[in-house]
């Protein structure tokens, strides 16, 4: 391209192409294989799970919101071939790995209590009336392990059981309500509400 000045914008657009218009196959050097809901796809290495699914041809309606780790829409569970462990990830914030086989959980059915914030008093009372099942917690730590935000979920549930609202609010502050804590909980709590 000739002239120098006007051409800055073109250069910028060119360098951003992969995130703006989708990826061009000819620019890819490293490929990996992943499996989406049981079907295998070859995708470029280095993409997020979300970008890789789009590359494979999926156009999201569900499971995609902020694309930046703030909304909890892109809840994903996966295993890597040969590893027994079940892992969790935000599709928009996690790099694809060779041998990943995944599914997405776009919605969590969970109860949410209604309340009048002006009538609540701090302490244990509101929890016992609004979310009595909180007492069922077994201390298994599954919720904490499922959290993509590294929140100590079990600990804030414990704080709630003691009526320590301040600590509970502090510990759960970074919650993006993605719901897998509730899906994994053997005691059927809805931690994120």
């Amino acid at each position, binding site marked *: 391209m000739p002239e120098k000045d*006007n051409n*800055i914008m073109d250069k910028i657009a060119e360098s951003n192409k*992969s995130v703006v218009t989708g990826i061009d196959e000819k620019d890819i050097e490293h490929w990996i294989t992943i499996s989406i809901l049981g079907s295998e796809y070859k995708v470029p290495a280095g993409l997020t799970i979300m970008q890789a699914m789009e590359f494979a041809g999926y156009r999201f*309606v569900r499971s995609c919101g902020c694309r930046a780790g703030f909304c909890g829409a892109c809840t994903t569970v996966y295993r890597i071939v040969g590893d027994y462990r079940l892992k969790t990830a935000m599709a928009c914030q996690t790099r694809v790995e060779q041998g990943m086989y995944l599914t997405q959980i776009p919605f969590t059915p969970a109860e949410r209590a209604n309340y009048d914030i002006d009538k609540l008093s701090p302490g244990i009372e509101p929890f016992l009336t609004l979310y009595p099942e909180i007492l069922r917690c077994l201390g298994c730590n599954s919720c904490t392990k499922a959290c993509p935000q590294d929140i100590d979920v079990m600990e804030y549930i414990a704080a709630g059981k003691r009526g320590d609202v301040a600590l509970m609010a502090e510990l759960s502050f*970074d919650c993006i309500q993605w719901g897998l804590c509730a899906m994994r909980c053997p005691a059927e709590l809805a931690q994120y509400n």
Partner: protein
Amino acid sequence: MAELKFIGGYPEYMRKFIDIVNKTRAKRKDYTPIAMTMEQRDEVLKVHPDYAPGGKRSISIGLNKGDMAPNEVADLIEAYPLIQGNEVDLTKPDLSVDLLIIGGGLAGTAAAVWANDKGVDKDQILLVNKLRHGDANSIMAEGGTQAADRENDSPARHFLDAIGGGHFTNKPDVLRALVEDAPLIMKWLCDLGAIFDREEDGSFVEKAGGGTSRRRMHACKDYTGLEELRVIRDEFRNREIPYLEYYPVIELLTDGSRVTGAVLYNLETGDYKIIQAKATILATGGFGRLHVRGFPTTNHYGATCDGVVLAYRAGAKLRDTDTVQYHPTGAAYPQQIIGLLLTEKLRGMGAQPVNKNGEAFVFPLEPRDVEAASFIRECYVKENGIVTPTGMRGVWLDTPMIELKNGEGTIEKSFPGMFRMFNRFDLDIRKDPVLVFPTLHYQNGGVESDPWGKTNVDSLWVAGEVSGGIHGKNRLMGNSTLDCLVFGRRTGISVAEYLKSDVKHGKLMLEHMKNYVTMLKQAGIDTTRKAPILLPDYRGKAVLARMIDVF
């Protein structure tokens, strides 16, 4: 590209540049480049995407004919509707309500709560969302919300800062409403239980932002929007106000002069719904996903300019369509998070922009357009940027300086979101700087309104990013979440007032849309483009090339 060796998340060659930043840090600690003069600002703005030649054209039809807009926006204004009109049955609305709210970000959700508070029955309100309620730009706001609530500050000062930032193009009456209501909004948020950062003595922590002459940025760590939306949406749910998800509005309905409802489309099942409403509040947010001039964006998946398109067809007046806000510090590395936002608060707390030679080259808190342009100049004119393995250029944002100035642990405490985001890709922003480049952030202009959010079209209100005027041609940080809350509240109250005057439902027609199509044809716009686009399309090129439609 040959196999790259990575050290601490960076390829070896980038590591060398990082060493330069790390070595020069102590020297830069007490040095800040001086702010630019007006002439210097004008000079650097020549490489800003808004001012660089090309990229825009004038709108060829409608009330704003002749106004300039980015090509990507003009393309949608000059596009045909998704429906023709005869395929939808307008004679039997699926639901009749007093108030229809389109878009559930901060603005729309706040509007619902306030309308209900001022007497609109909850079952006479419907909030519709394109995605989930909360999949919105609002939830992503990191840096904070402005409000002049300290002794050394005043709404008048706030006004002057905002109008200066907007290059004196702001609409004064709406801006006045913004700054005057700000303290009240802070009180409301606190009453709803929002947890803002506090000093030891319980007063708000307040920080500076680009273009502010006083410290008035209130933040909830770097999850301000998440917290604000969380408490307001909880209040919304507690009031049991009805809402729909995955049901975008694809066209407004009018009786020929006033807005009387809307056509909704179910993104999953493909059927439509007709909603009849006495009043409509449009709160659909911005347009980052149009990727104006090929820039990446900070915006959520549904930020596709729908509201502006719909309102314009119904006869609403737009303003300041010619400018776009690029945030100076979008992530430029790693590839997975290109374009995502690194809040301005990082600079507010000491992080310096630094070039490849380890020089602090610009005052860190210039207005956003100036700051962004100076990054572009550093990378593409002065050739002082760093090139990433994918060919992007960027400058460093020296985040470890925050720890040096404010003490160890500050980053984890004040920027948990940022820290976590980079950590997922093995990058440690406490120890190493991050690479940044401007990213498309905010729709400055939009639908014009009065101080109560009323547009020139009867029964249509606007609130939030879809509106235009408050910020003129450039918005300052922290004024947009504020804008949503102030005008969410004001539109809610205004509609409640309006409904008291015993308004009747109007006829449901699409004549305005059909007339618009006639205008498009008369203007010779021969295109297959359709709008609103609802969602962007990032599918792989190879797959798209082989796509067939068989059922």
